[in-house]
């Protein structure tokens, strides 16, 4: 309930700066279209990569962009936690009778990221429509699972980054290696990369659980199973449990800054 009140407030704030909002929206849209275009150029020359066609990789691209941008839009408070600490905003969360998690979630919503979300959704729908196979209920469910899992994973990474900020006060660019890096990496199914790298991003940071593994099931690749591949998004989502508790724990270690 409270979240929607905040949503309304953020919207009111946005209306105060309409022009800059539309410019950011435009730039976000262009950024995602250009990324798609460069992918198209590559497939125009090479046709296939590691067994995946353009229309298949387009799904991977759309899923990861959708999840990342969606999380950037609604989980912005965690993404910019360092700012929150530096401005003293976090102090004011502590004096309110609501959980810090809840208040951080409410504190920032970056609507301009919706430009990318919309582009990603459009690409997703188009890429799904041109797939040669017919969509069963199982495949739709897997696709929805992929989207949810991606959002949960990126959100967990933002939360872990925020937890680190409590100790360092400064923002950590290293966190971007995982978030931005993850976004770039996951545009392609993980079997494009060497096995070691793919393993890290399957078992340590479970990026594979929302694109590579379920996509094998989606496209009936040889060796794809229900338990190991179709349900992978469910396993991947588990990362939020440790992430949430680490965040909770780090909050008790908070050292307020300034006077």
């Amino acid at each position, binding site marked *: 309930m409270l979240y929607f009140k905040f949503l309304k407030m953020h919207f009111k704030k946005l209306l105060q700066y309409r022009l800059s909002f539309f410019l950011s929206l435009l730039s976000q849209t262009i950024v995602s279209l250009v990324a798609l275009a460069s992918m198209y150029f590559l497939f*125009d*020359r090479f046709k296939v990569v590691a067994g995946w066609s353009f229309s298949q990789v387009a799904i991977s691209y759309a899923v990861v962009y959708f999840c990342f941008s969606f999380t950037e839009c609604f989980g912005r408070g965690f993404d910019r936690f360092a700012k929150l600490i530096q401005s003293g905003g976090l102090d004011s969360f502590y004096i309110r009778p609501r959980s810090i998690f809840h208040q951080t979630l409410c504190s920032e919503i970056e609507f301009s990221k919706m430009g990318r979300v919309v582009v990603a959704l459009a690409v997703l729908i188009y890429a799904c429509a041109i797939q040669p196979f017919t969509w069963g209920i199982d495949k739709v469910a897997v696709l929805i699972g992929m989207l949810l899992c991606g959002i949960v994973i990126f959100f967990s990474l933002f939360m872990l980054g925020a937890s680190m900020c409590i100790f360092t006060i400064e923002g950590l660019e290293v966190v971007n290696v995982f978030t931005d890096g993850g976004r770039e990496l996951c545009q392609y199914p993980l079997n494009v990369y060497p096995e070691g790298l793919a393993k890290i991003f399957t078992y340590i940071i479970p990026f594979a659980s929302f694109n590579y593994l379920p996509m094998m099931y989606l496209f009936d690749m040889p060796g794809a199973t229900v338990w190991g591949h179709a349900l992978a998004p469910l396993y991947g989502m588990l990362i939020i449990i440790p992430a949430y508790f680490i965040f909770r724990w780090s909050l008790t270690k908070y050292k307020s800054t300034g006077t």
Partner: protein
Amino acid sequence: MRAYASIFKIRFINTMQYRTAAYAGVITQICFGLMYVFLYLAFYKQGNIPENFTATQMVSFLWLQQMFFVYFFPIDQNKNIVGQIEQGNICYEMVRPMKLYNNWSVTLFAEKVAKTLLRFVPVLIFAILLPTGVGLELPASAGAFFLSLFNLIVSGLLIVAMNMVCYCLLFKTMSSLGIFSIYTTIASLLGGSLIPIPMMPGWIQNILNFLPFRYTSDLTFRTYVGSIDIQSALIQTAIQVGWLMLFVVLGKVLMNRCLKKVEVQGG
């Protein structure tokens, strides 16, 4: 001239303070470098490899790109300068006894060089130590090396000159929001920073030859790896210098106009 030297010095020293950001940058560049190398090698396995861009050349190209990532970043969003334009504090700059155009250019170039020096050595060492096939190789020839070194310097100046034109346009719109990131994206695509130009369709490559963007990183790196032979590289270097002169003149003309406007408005 001494004034500009000291501006360069102070900007340089100031930027060297941000070491932590640089360490993070090094890690980012190495991770992204590895990722792109493996990704493009996977594409190369399919065949249909561009003739003038072999796998080894491509890998070296990608590492150079990561080494000089900040140097070739299409536009440096200097908070100081943007602030001066947006908030109209420019009158303070105008009372100083030096040309605003030169002052800003020197600032931008000094910061670019300082940021690069902080980052490129660790990435270079990492890329050289990697095994053949995935690491950075030596330049195609001594000539290619020295020519690419020249290209590197001119490229930095060219990017700064192009940035100055952008900053002048910022005078007109007065709001930097969105514009910088749109420019960055488009310039990256057209300059071959998103995907290397030799991998693009032929008709696009032809168009890009007539635009200034590829006469920065693309020319420099491909001269180094030998993807462009020395003779054509020399011709293209001449084109690069031509673009530089064009943008400097354009920037100066625009700047003078803008400053006149500021005076009329009373700053």
